């Protein structure tokens, strides 16, 4: 009985609030912005679908022939215009391009990253480097390669310079952020014992952030591999990307594209596996 009474009294207490709807989320500025963005995007999508110019294309038929193309590409792959060993060699050329640009990028980025980390330099130098690096990063890699192609001509040189350029900007951000993660106390401790900047960097900062640095560099290597394929096609940098370009635009051979795609996929999976192995080892020993 008593419990019941208590319950009813609790209900009475709640009642005035129940009449007013209780909101869990308050309407803040950010939620308004997010909602209106979503609504605008939805409206734009609907408008886009309505205003498409289908050119008397039968959607069903188009989908079916796309599937037919995909089937030819991936279920009946073959190599016609070059041999398996040639393809393998070209994949290694592409890997080489990715490796070279990542290596160059990493070396330059370590030093710029040190200068960009706020806890290691002053704020002005840091924000200057971070700003310029953000600008470089905002322009896609392909565009940088084409810009450098003006001076170096289309080909591998432009690709190496352009890709290195973008790798540097990407890695500077990644590295400097992992340097900034370091506890300031450690730097203070070494400063208090009279150690100088370079000693602190190599004895405390880099050992502490080595795992992050390696995993970021590996990620960039994977990105650079993908970009190197595109560069082969777009900038004539050679490698498997160029063969893909030839197969699609020159020989119009869908099945060969399928075969090359499988090649690239195999390498990508291999890279991923190596990266995972590597990181596991680092976590245990490092």
């Amino acid at each position: 009985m008593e419990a019941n009474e208590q319950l009813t009294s609790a209900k009475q207490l709640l009642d005035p609030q129940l009449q007013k709807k209780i909101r869990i989320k308050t309407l803040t500025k950010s939620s308004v912005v997010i909602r209106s963005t979503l609504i605008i995007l939805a409206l734009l999508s609907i408008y886009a679908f309505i205003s498409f110019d289908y050119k008397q294309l039968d959607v069903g038929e188009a989908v079916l022939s796309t599937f037919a193309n995909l089937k030819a590409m991936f279920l009946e792959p073959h190599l016609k215009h070059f041999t398996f060993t040639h393809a393998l060699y070209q994949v290694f050329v592409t890997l080489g391009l990715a490796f070279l640009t990542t290596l160059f990028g990493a070396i330059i980025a370590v030093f710029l990253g040190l200068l960009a980390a706020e806890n290691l330099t002053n704020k002005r130098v840091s924000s200057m480097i971070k700003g310029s690096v953000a600008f470089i990063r905002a322009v896609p890699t392909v565009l940088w390669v084409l810009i450098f192609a003006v001076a170096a001509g289309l080909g591998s040189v432009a690709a190496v310079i352009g890709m290195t350029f973008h790798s540097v900007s990407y890695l500077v951000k990644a590295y400097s952020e992992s340097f900034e993660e370091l506890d300031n106390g450690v730097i203070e401790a070494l400063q208090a014992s009279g150690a100088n900047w370079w000693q602190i960097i190599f004895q405390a900062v880099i050992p502490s952030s080595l795992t992050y640095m390696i995993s970021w560099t590996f990620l960039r290597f994977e990105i650079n591999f993908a970009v190197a394929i595109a560069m082969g096609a777009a900038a004539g940098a050679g490698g498997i990307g160029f063969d893909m370009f030839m197969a699609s635009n020159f020989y119009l051979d869908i099945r060969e594209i399928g075969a090359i795609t499988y090649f690239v996929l195999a390498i990508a999976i291999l890279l991923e596996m190596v990266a995972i192995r590597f990181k596991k080892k680092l976590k245990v020993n490092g």
Partner: protein
Amino acid sequence: MTALLEVNHVSKQFGSDTKALSDVNFSVNEGEFVSIIGPSGAGKSTLLRCINRMIDATSGEIIFDNMNVMNLKKKDLKKVRTKIGMIFQHYNLVNRLSVIENTLHGNLGKKSTLAGVLGLYSQEEKEQAVNILHVLGLDEHIYKRADQLSGGQKQRVGIARALIQDPRMLLCDEPIASLDPNSAKIIMDHLRNISTKLGITVLVNLHQVDVALKYSDKIIGVNHGQVVYNGSPKDITKEDIQLIYGSEAEDLIFDVGGIHAS
């Protein structure tokens, strides 16, 4: 006994209105064990860091070993810093490196840039590190990574890193604040030993008044950036404690009389 450290009229101002230290005066003799006590935010850490110029004091002079630390150029300052070891509440070790590597870091200030960067240490330095670690009871942990140690062990590595500098003075910023009573006692005993056996001056920031009274030769009480007590732990009274902490001594969770009795 000569004064190793003299702090004269030192003030420190952060920004335009926050005064961390105002007109602090005291001196510390060679081989003395001095505790600085006071409530949180009283300026203890700032005071300690002004001595080796991790923070630059606004005015006043700090005489260490007959040199005015305040006027030193970068190079001389580094030289002075090699003679002053520092120990921290959070140990501040490089977690990914081994105990012996962390210990040897204390020597970086005396090495050339290149040798320090590459981590090249002489056989002598390595032997010294092993000896110090042995004295501190860390023999089995020499090759362990610093983050695999317990808090007390980490703090002992911190002490080892300071001792390998062959310092004249140790600055300890809350060395036992994150430790359990057992490890805290081990650390304080080590610090006391360093002071008596090696003749190294030890300056400790402490929160535990009872610990400070038990271990020190001299107590410096700080409140609101000012020295409000400076003298022997034997002469400290309830009124002094009240002055330092700004509360009734009875309210604090220790017993002054009991400590004097023991």
